[in-house]
């Protein structure tokens, strides 16, 4: 099985990290992974996206034409990548920043007020972890334990408090994702 995914949003929303943590968790589970960020003369507040592929097979192209899964954290990202998602694919989007939403009816839409929920958890910066949780809850792409291990290695010593908030956001995301299975 191969899952091709695009995560997109404003620079600073942590979209690159969504792909990176999932790729790292996938690698820990023995899967083939690739992580290809957009890069360019961009800045905070500009747009950023990352193509991530997680597969049981060797990965041919790291470039994704038709993603199985899109995470759009803002409207420009949803407008740009929404039409590319495969039929019967999944679009997870942040309703707080996507006022016009998505008009497609041949994919599964998962609209979530991510900013609101992240703020409830106590920090806007856990928004990307919430998205990871929703992906895991919906698709089982990687195990929660694998993501927890990745996060531990990043934050256990550096910032245990932020680690707890991140894990809380992932767990909350998983609950939300499960509602759509």
């Amino acid at each position, binding site marked *: 099985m191969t899952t091709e995914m695009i995560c997109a949003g404003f620079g600073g929303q942590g979209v690159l990290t969504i792909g*990176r943590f999932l*790729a*790292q968790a996938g*690698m820990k589970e023995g899967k*083939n*992974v*690739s*992580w*290809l*960020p957009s*890069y*360019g*003369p961009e800045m905070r507040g500009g747009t950023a996206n990352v193509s991530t592929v997680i597969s049981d097979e060797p*990965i*041919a*192209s*790291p*470039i*994704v*034409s*038709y993603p199985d899964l899109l995470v759009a954290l803002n409207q420009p990202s949803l407008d740009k990548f929404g039409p590319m998602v495969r039929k019967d694919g999944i679009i997870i989007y942040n309703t707080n920043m996507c006022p016009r939403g998505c008009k497609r009816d041949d994919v599964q839409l998962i609209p979530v007020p991510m900013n609101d929920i992240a703020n409830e958890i106590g920090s806007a910066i856990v928004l990307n972890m919430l998205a990871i949780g929703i992906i895991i809850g919906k698709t089982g792409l990687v195990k929660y334990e694998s993501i927890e291990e990745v996060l531990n290695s990043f934050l256990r010593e550096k910032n245990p408090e932020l680690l707890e908030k991140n894990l809380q956001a992932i767990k909350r995301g998983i609950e939300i994702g499960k509602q759509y299975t």
Partner: protein
Amino acid sequence: MSKILMKGNEAVAEAAIRAGCRLYFAYPITPQSELIEYMAKMMPKVGGTFIQAESEVAAINMVYGAAGVGKRVMTSSSSPGISLKQEGISYMAGAELPAVIVNVQRGGPGLGDIQPAQGDYFQAVKGGGHGDYQLIVLAPCSVQEFADLASDAFDLADKYRNPVMILADGMLGQMMEPVEFKPAKTQEELEALANQHLSWCICPNADGDAKHHHEINSLELDPEILEKHVNKLYEKYAEIEKNEVRYESYNVSDDNEILCVAWGTAARVVKSAINELAVRGKSIGLVRPITCWPYPYEAIASAIGPKVKKVYVFELNSGQMVEDVKIAVNGKVPVDFWGKLGGIVFTPADIQAKLEACF
């Protein structure tokens, strides 16, 4: 050793250090800056020397000097910076100095942009600098291969006393994939490496014997002697052509109706299109040159099966490799080309559409 998720730029740097590179001189440029950053961080930790030179020209001349004392030395840059290094590269080829040069290509010509491209094929493979010389040119397509070729590049450079270029692109530099490294060279191995060039390199004259006087130079004003020297270089290049051709065959069979040729990351996009079309019963093969010089002419010629009606070249440039493919195909079947320019990377869907139109 377990796998690490790493950017290509970092992986090639780590692999170079493990291969015994303790000298690295460069000047930063996007999209290869993580490479120089990694070297800046790691070289002091392994007792090596990192210098951010004042320019690319200075960096390549530092490489010339370090190679002249027989040490494993590397520099890296991206397209415009590699252009600046060409004089030094030609001097090194002339003086037969082993060194590794990494080019993480971006869009050109001129300053161009900072997106991935393959527009430096001619420069790397057909010359770049002045005079009659060849570089060994290695073209990785994954982060793992980028790392593996770094260590091979040093071995080839030492074996043939010739500069070796690793021709990557911005996509490979920026993307992360799992990579597994070879064990780092041991102290004994590093000493053996240091001693392998004593017969010609500039080295301490321990016993005061005047015979130890070695000269590193690319200047020879006597035409007869210079001609002899260049002929000797070409004997060496013939040896490299005989021994070092590398390529990957993907899905090549007698059922192929199309044979694709692509190199570097572009070849991976082509592979995806081939896989997608295989599901629909269309048989397409791919030859991916790993050495762009020496070029796998015979591999391409022998991959043209009985049903192949066209050889299709896909590159992220204006078709620079096509002439090498045409030499290989030698008029047997038509050779077609499609590519993207300006740092735009084609997608599997683009290639699929091009290939489907052939059936």
